[in-house]
C-alpha cells in the first residue's frame, strides 16, 4: 500500500507541474498571446467575462505574480475554468462535458480492443518463434509505427469513405438526418460513424502491443520454470498461457500505462481528421480560434485522464506482481 501512496504523491506532484506550466506559459511568451486573444474577442463577449480573463492571465492587474498564482490555483482546483470564448457564453466545463463522452467511447473501446488483439497476437508470435506470423509481424509493425496517425486516418477516409462509399467519415453522427436520442437508429448511426476512426486508432496502436508481448514472451520462454514445465510434459497450450504469457503480460501492462500518452495524441489527430465531436477535435478548435481558457482546461483534463490511467495500471501491476512492490 505504501507503494500506491508514493505513486499517488508523484501523480499529484505531476499534476501540479502541469498546472504551473499552464500558468507560466502565456506569461513567459513574448508579446503575451493572452493579450492578443483578449483584443480579438473584444466586443464579442461581455465586459464581465473580459475582466475575469484579465485576472486569469494577469493582464491589466497590479497584483504580484505569486498572488495571481494562488488565485489561479484556487480557480483550477475548484473546477472554475472560466468562460469559453469560441462557444460564448457557455462555461468551459459545460462545453467540455458534451465532448468528453465521445472521446471516452471511441478511444476507450479502440484501446481495449487493440490491447486484447495485440497481446494475443504477440503471445502466438512469441510462442511460435520463427513461424510465419512471427517473421511477418515485426517488420510490418516497425513500419506502421512510423506512420503518422492522421495520415492513416486520411487513407481510410479516402478508401472506405470517398472511393467506396461504405462508411461515413465526418462527425460522430449524421447531423442533418438524425437527432441525438437513445433510439436504435441513432445508436447504430453513432456506431457506423465510429468504425473508421476506431479502425485508424486500432491499426496505429496495435503494433506496440504485439511487439512488446512478443519480445517479453521470448525472454520468458527462456526461463527455467518454462523448461521444467516442458520437461514435465505439460501440454503446449498450458505452457504458453499459464507459464509464459501469464508472466510476460506484466511488462505489457506497464507498457500500456506508458503508451497512454501516445494513444491520446493519436486520438487528437484522428478526431481532427474525422471532425469527431470529441475532446481532441475540440482542443484543436480551441487552438485555432485562440480560445485559451478552453485549451488550458482541455490540456488539464487530458493530463488528469492519462495520469489516472497510468495510476490504475501501476496499481494493477503491483497487485499482480509482488516483485514490483518494493522496487520502483
Amino acid at each position, binding site marked *: 500500500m505504501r507503494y500506491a501512496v508514493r505513486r499517488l504523491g508523484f501523480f499529484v506532484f505531476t499534476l501540479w*507541474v502541469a498546472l504551473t506550466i499552464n500558468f507560466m506559459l502565456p506569461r513567459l511568451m513574448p508579446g503575451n498571446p493572452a493579450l492578443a486573444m483578449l483584443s480579438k474577442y473584444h466586443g464579442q463577449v461581455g465586459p464581465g467575462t473580459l475582466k475575469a480573463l484579465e485576472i486569469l492571465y494577469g493582464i491589466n492587474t497590479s497584483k504580484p505574480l505569486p498572488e495571481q498564482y494562488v488565485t489561479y490555483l484556487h480557480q483550477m482546483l475548484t473546477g472554475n475554468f472560466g468562460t469559453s470564448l469560441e462557444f460564448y457564453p457557455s462555461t468551459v466545463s459545460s462545453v467540455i462535458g458534451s465532448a468528453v463522452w465521445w472521446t471516452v467511447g471511441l478511444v476507450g473501446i479502440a484501446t481495449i480492443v487493440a490491447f486484447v488483439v495485440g497481446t494475443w497476437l504477440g503471445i502466438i508470435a512469441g510462442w511460435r518463434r520463427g513461424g510465419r506470423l512471427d*517473421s511477418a509481424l515485426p517488420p510490418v509493425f516497425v513500419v506502421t509505427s*512510423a506512420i503518422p496517425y492522421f495520415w492513416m486516418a486520411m487513407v481510410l477516409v479516402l478508401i472506405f469513405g470517398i472511393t467506396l462509399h461504405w462508411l461515413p467519415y465526418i462527425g460522430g453522427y449524421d447531423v442533418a438526418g438524425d437527432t441525438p436520442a437513445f433510439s436504435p437508429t441513432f445508436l447504430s448511426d453513432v456506431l457506423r460513424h465510429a468504425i473508421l476512426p476506431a479502425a485508424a486508432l486500432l491499426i496505429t496502436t496495435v503494433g506496440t502491443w504485439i511487439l512488446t508481448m512478443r519480445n517479453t514472451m521470448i525472454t520468458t520462454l527462456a526461463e527455467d520454470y518454462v523448461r521444467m514445465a516442458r520437461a514435465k510434459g505439460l501440454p503446449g497450450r498450458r505452457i504458453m498461457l499459464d507459464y509464459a504469457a501469464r508472466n510476460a503480460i506484466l511488462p505489457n501492462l506497464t507498457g500500456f500505462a506508458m503508451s497512454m500518452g501516445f494513444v491520446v495524441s493519436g486520438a487528437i489527430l484522428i478526431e481532427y481528421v474525422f471532425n469527431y465531436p470529441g475532446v481532441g477535435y475540440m482542443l484543436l478548435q480551441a487552438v*485555432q480560434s485562440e480560445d485559451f481558457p478552453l485549451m488550458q482546461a482541455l490540456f488539464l483534463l487530458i493530463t488528469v485522464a492519462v495520469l489516472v490511467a497510468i495510476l490504475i495500471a501501476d496499481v494493477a501491476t503491483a497487485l499482480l506482481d509482488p516483485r514490483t512492490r518494493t522496487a520502483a
Partner: protein
Amino acid sequence: MSMPISGITTGQPDAGPAPALDPVGPGVPAATAAVPGGAASALRRMTTAIRRNRKATIGAVLLLLFVLVAIFPWVIANDNPNADAFKPRLGVSTAHLLGTTAYGQDMWAQLVWGTRNVIIIAFTAGLATTLIAVLVGVAAAYLGGAWDGALGVLTDVLLVIPLFPLLIVIAAYANGGGTLVLILVITVTSWSYTARQLRSQALSLRRRDFLEAARVRGERPLYIIVVEVIPTMTSLIVACFLTNALYAVLFASSLQFIGLGDPNTVSWGTMLYWAQNNAALQTGQPLWAIAPGACIAALGAAFALLNYAFDEIGNPALRPLRRNRVKRAR
C-alpha cells in the same frame, strides 16, 4: 507513432537493466567496449552490423536517399516549389509528376524541396534531444544521491505528462513561430524517454573497473562522464538518437499538419495542412495528401528499421531464428 520500439524491450523500469542495454556489439568481448575512447571502434562495429542486418541495410539506404534529396533537391525537381506558376489542380503528367495544387504549385517540387525542412528537424531536434537525454541520464546515474533523485523526478514527470497535447499548448502560445520554434519545443519536451534508457545503462556501468580507476586517479566527475562513460555507451546513444529523430519527424509533421508550424515553409507537414484545408481528398486531389504522408512514413520507417536492427544487435535473443532450432525448442 506508437511507443518507441527499442524501448519496449528495455523500458521495464522495475526489472533492472534489461539485456538489450548491453552496449557490446555481437561477438565482441566486453573488455573491448570498455576501453576508453572506444567510440571510433564502436562506430566501425555498427557499420559492419548495419551491413549484415537486412532491416538495418534497408533503413540506412532509405535514410541516405532522403538526406541526399534534402541536400541536392534541384537535381530531381526544377520548379520553384512556392511559385503559384501553373494552372491549379492539374492532373499527373510528365511536366508535373504529381500534378499541381489548388494554388497552382508543382506538387513534385513541393515534395522534393520539402524534404530539407523535415531532415533538418529530424537531425537537429534528434541530436539536441539526445544530448539532453545523455547529460541528464548519465549525470543522474553517475552522480547518484540527491542528483539522481531530482533528475529522476524531472524525467518521470515529463514522461507521464501527455507530450503531444503539451506540444500543442506550447506551440499555440508561440503562435506560428516557424521551424526553429518547432525544434526548440520538441527538444525541450521529448528527451525524457531516452534519458531513462540511458540512465539504466549508465547505472550498470557504474561499478566497472575502468571507472574505479579513473576515480582513484582523482579525475573530476565531469571528466569521467564525458571521457570515460559516454564513449562506452555509443551504440545505445545512437539508438536513442534514432528514436528521438523518429519522434521529431512525427511530432513536427503533426504540428505542421494542424497548422501550428509556419504555413509558408515548404515541408511535408505543411503540404498536408494545405491539402486538408482545401479538402484535397474530397475534391479529387488525393495525391496532395497521400504523397507527403507516404514520405513521412518512409522516413520514419527508415529510423524505425535502423532502431529495430540495433535492438536485435544489442539483444541477440530477439534475432530471427532458423526454423530447425524452433522445432527442437518446442
